[in-house]
């Protein structure tokens, strides 16, 4: 099924579709940072306390999707280079956009970003102190839970980290601009009348993901540097002031 050239394209499309869906859910989850510390902490805690087989099942499923997507892309690129050993003296590109021509480059950087992101916020080996951040805010019972809000704010207060995240999301935007509509082409779920609509949907989706993911790091930096003088610190939440003034990261000058 997946051994032929088209089989590999199906693998790219199916794993790509899984990841297209995942980034939306992840983005929607992230945006709860804007609803406040209690909201995002409770959400993060609810994910962490899922039954182990659901939690690890979905983690392994997503990891497998990323690895299959990357490995298949690599093998397709190797085959493609072999298929055209001699390029034209004058190389003309009539229709393909930069996003579609640079899928390998954007994909590789996104893969590196995923590794960094997992070490940064999920496994927390880059800053082990993130694992020590505990709070009662957002806890469903009387026990302390991980302070995802504090971790995210501390993480994005570092300009280099925030910029890397935003750049990676811009590349993801470019990757999706070609990838989203290619899913339909590779699986054959597309006709001439739907072609331009699906292309537009892909571009719209790519921008939605880019903006949705970039809001949080950009907001943190905007607040840190006081770009807007009239900015209200309670934008992130009222709860911070009421419940955790002592460890409110937004009030600390770093």
């Amino acid at each position, binding site marked *: *099924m997946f051994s*032929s*050239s*088209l*089989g*590999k*394209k*199906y693998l790219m499309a199916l794993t790509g579709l899984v990841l297209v869906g995942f980034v939306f859910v992840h983005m929607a989850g992230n945006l709860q940072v804007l609803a406040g510390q209690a909201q995002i902490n409770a959400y993060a805690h609810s994910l962490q306390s899922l039954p182990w087989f659901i939690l690890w099942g979905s983690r392994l499923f997503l990891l497998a999707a990323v690895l299959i997507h990357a490995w298949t892309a690599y093998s*397709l690129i190797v*085959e*493609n280079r*072999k*298929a*055209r*050993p*001699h*390029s*034209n*003296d*004058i*190389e*003309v*590109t*009539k*229709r*393909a956009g930069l996003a*579609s*021509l640079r*899928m390998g480059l954007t994909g590789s950087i996104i893969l590196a970003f995923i590794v960094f992101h997992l070490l940064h916020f999920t496994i927390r080996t880059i800053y082990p102190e993130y694992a020590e951040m505990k709070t009662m805010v957002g806890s469903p019972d009387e026990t302390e839970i991980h302070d995802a809000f504090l971790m995210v704010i501390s993480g994005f207060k570092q300009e280099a980290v925030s910029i890397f995240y935003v750049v990676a999301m811009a590349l993801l935007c470019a990757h999706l601009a*070609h990838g989203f*509509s*290619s899913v*339909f*082409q*590779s*699986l*054959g*779920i*597309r*006709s*001439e009348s739907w*072609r331009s609509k699906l292309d537009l949907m892909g571009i719209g989706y790519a921008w939605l993901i880019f903006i949705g993911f970039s809001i949080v790091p950009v907001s943190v930096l905007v607040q840190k540097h006081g770009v807007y003088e009239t900015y209200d610190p309670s934008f992130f939440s009222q709860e911070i002031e009421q419940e955790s003034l002592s460890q409110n990261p937004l009030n600390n000058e770093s």
Partner: protein
Amino acid sequence: MKLTLKIWRQSGPKGKGLFESHTLDGVSEDSSFLEMLDQLNEQLLGEGKEPVAFDHDCREGICGTCSLTINGHAHGPEDSTTTCQLHMRKFRDGETVTIEPFRAKAFPVVRDLIVDRSAFDRIVQSGGFISVRTGSAPDGNAIPISKVDADDAMDAAACIGCGACVASCKNASAMLFTSAKAAHLNLLPQGQAEKDTRSINMVQAMDEAGFGNCRNYGECSAACPKDISLDYIAKLNRDHAKAKIKKIFS
């Protein structure tokens, strides 16, 4: 018109090719691109040099024999035009024109600008046919086919098999050709009996010939002198997937 021609010369399949420059004067704006090359060859013969080898046959844009990558464009910069139908008025006086063979591993150079496109024949031989006798013209008309399907199949059948899709593809993929050749049969009732084996075998023959993989750039369709739609690639992707799934459960 006076032109500087930068032409790929290669003695044979194993030869190491290189570009050679020639100046050609007195080119008529009304001549076709191939007539201009004829004129160059006359000049080369007069100088006692070897003429440039290039493919050509009908010279009216329907046989698919002419090829050439002209200034980086398969069949030249004009849309929906084969090299033989391209006229010299599309070029400027004094221009340097770069002429290369179609570049792909599956299209080895035979000599100069001639490439071996028999890989396309092997793809057609693997499934681009139907094995039943369809009778004569009146019998053909006895099978009702909707106007929509007939037009769709005819649009796919317009493919002349020139190989511009492969030459213009960054990955030398033959998906536009293969999908057109599969679609014009897969769309019609006569082609249904062998639809699944056709969809699998033609893709297999395409892979074995050493063509690259489709990356949905659309460069093929943009270069196609017959404007074959990317839709047929989506259709072959669909037909191939269905055939493979049916094979698993059969």
